């Protein structure tokens, strides 16, 4: 508990500093007048306060609350993904099964800690059964595209995201009762990487990584962000079962996965001609805009930790 508390105080201090800097910028640079970049920065930081508050509350309530919280985030993410992509009237049953069966079952399996089932339920059972149901409706127009959209939505918004609370079920010798700190490590490192990429990009960004996909992802932001977030991960080794070097290695991998997750999700957004997935979080966009990096890094982090640290 003391570790969690120290961590929490650390995060609050960082947010205080960030808010102070942002309001300082509004005062000094924008002279208190509206300024697109600074106003967006303040909106983003305010949203961070709210997000940290929600997650901290869930942490305080325990593992079950955390699973319920991620089930809700998963629902919001799934709706954003399906809203943007193409499905037809004849896909209604498939969508109903995705929202009202696959999603609750996946999180229930994590709740009861049935690893053998939650790691194949969506990639095997849902993957094979949903196309069968769709085919029975005998509507072949853009069939593969329509069913692939539902499969992708389930994989990203439900399966991958459910690996975040699943971390709390890993049984690591000598780390009993502290597994929720693995979730804190993953979320802090990956989200810091996003923020640091943004900061490095705004300060030094010149060369775009993928000009067609994203106007804000630069090589300077990528390298600076990933390296500094990796250093942060190493510095946080004391909340994990990892040594400093191991923590750095794992942080590096999940930061890279997080970056490429953002890139893939940008590609999907560009393909549909939108900038954001939704409007739920002021300054950030939708849930998926905030969680894209976590979605791509969570299963990798889960399996690396499970493979190397769970006997």
């Amino acid at each position, binding site marked *: 508990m003391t570790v969690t508390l120290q961590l929490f105080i650390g995060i609050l201090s960082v947010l205080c500093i960030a808010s102070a800097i942002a309001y300082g910028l509004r005062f000094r640079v924008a002279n208190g007048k509206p300024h697109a970049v600074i106003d967006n920065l303040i909106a983003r930081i305010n949203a961070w306060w709210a997000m940290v508050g929600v997650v901290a509350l869930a942490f305080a309530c325990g593992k079950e609350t955390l699973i319920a919280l991620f089930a809700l985030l998963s*629902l919001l993410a799934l*709706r954003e993904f399906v809203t943007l992509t193409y499905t037809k*009237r004849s896909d209604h049953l498939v969508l109903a099964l995705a929202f009202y069966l696959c999603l609750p079952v996946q999180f229930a399996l994590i709740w009861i800690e049935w690893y053998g089932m939650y790691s194949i339920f969506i990639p095997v059972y849902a993957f094979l059964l949903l196309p069968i149901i769709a085919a029975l409706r005998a509507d072949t127009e853009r069939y593969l595209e329509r069913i692939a959209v539902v499969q992708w939505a389930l994989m990203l918004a439900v399966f991958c995201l459910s690996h975040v609370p699943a971390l709390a079920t890993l049984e690591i010798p000598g780390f009993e009762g502290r597994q929720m700190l693995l979730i804190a490590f993953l979320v802090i490192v990956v989200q810091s990487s996003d923020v640091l990429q943004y900061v490095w990009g705004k300060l030094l960004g010149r060369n775009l990584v993928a000009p067609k996909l994203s106007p804000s992802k630069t090589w300077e932001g990528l390298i600076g962000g990933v390296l500094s977030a990796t250093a942060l991960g190493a510095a946080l080794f004391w909340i994990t079962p990892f040594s400093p070097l191991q923590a750095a290695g794992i942080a590096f991998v999940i930061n890279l996965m997080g970056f490429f997750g953002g890139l893939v999700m940008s590609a999907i957004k560009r393909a549909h001609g939108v900038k954001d997935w939704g409007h739920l979080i002021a300054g950030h966009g939708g849930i998926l805009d905030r969680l894209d990096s976590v979605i791509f890094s969570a299963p990798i982090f889960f399996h690396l930790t499970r493979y190397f640290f769970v006997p």
Partner: protein
Amino acid sequence: MLEKALRFLMLLFARVLTGARAVPVQAISREPTVYFSNHVSHGDFVLVWAVLDKAARERTRPVAAADYWNGNAIKRFIGNRIVRALLIERDPAKRLENPVEQMCQALDRGESLILFPEGTRNLTDAPLLAFKSGLFHLAQQRPNVRLVPAFIDNLHRVLPKGEVIPIPLLCTVYFGAPLERIEGEVKADFLIRAQTSLLAAKKL
């Protein structure tokens, strides 16, 4: 009291299910306004209602078909008491009152209206059905009332015809600029222009 509670629950359900929002919010006004929308499901007017602010919503009534909403006691209760719909008779042979006259009276009382000029739910793949002439006659008789296109996006995917379980997809009501009035414009041209403005609202 009961009506208020049920109305609140209906709006809450619509908001939670669809995350309904208005784009742009500034389009909502408290002046008497005719919002005209595409019609894809029975929930259409709820969505437009849900994105209006409280003051605007309290004086806004959906225009609905009397033959449907007087169908049975439950529908009558919902239509008259919860929704406070302005019920009009679609079949000219059964009409006791002129629908355009009814709508004008409501506007004169300071109320706003939600109108579905397609007259029936659009279950085709076409973006809009041909508009009925009511909107034109209304525009003729009340030249100063704002006619605002309000395109309802995505609701047909939430609950397609014949389905019972709603899917919680995000819905948006896109408001366009009030329709300009052109002196001497004939009915057919006016209705085409209204249709075009409704489709264009989504692209704003």
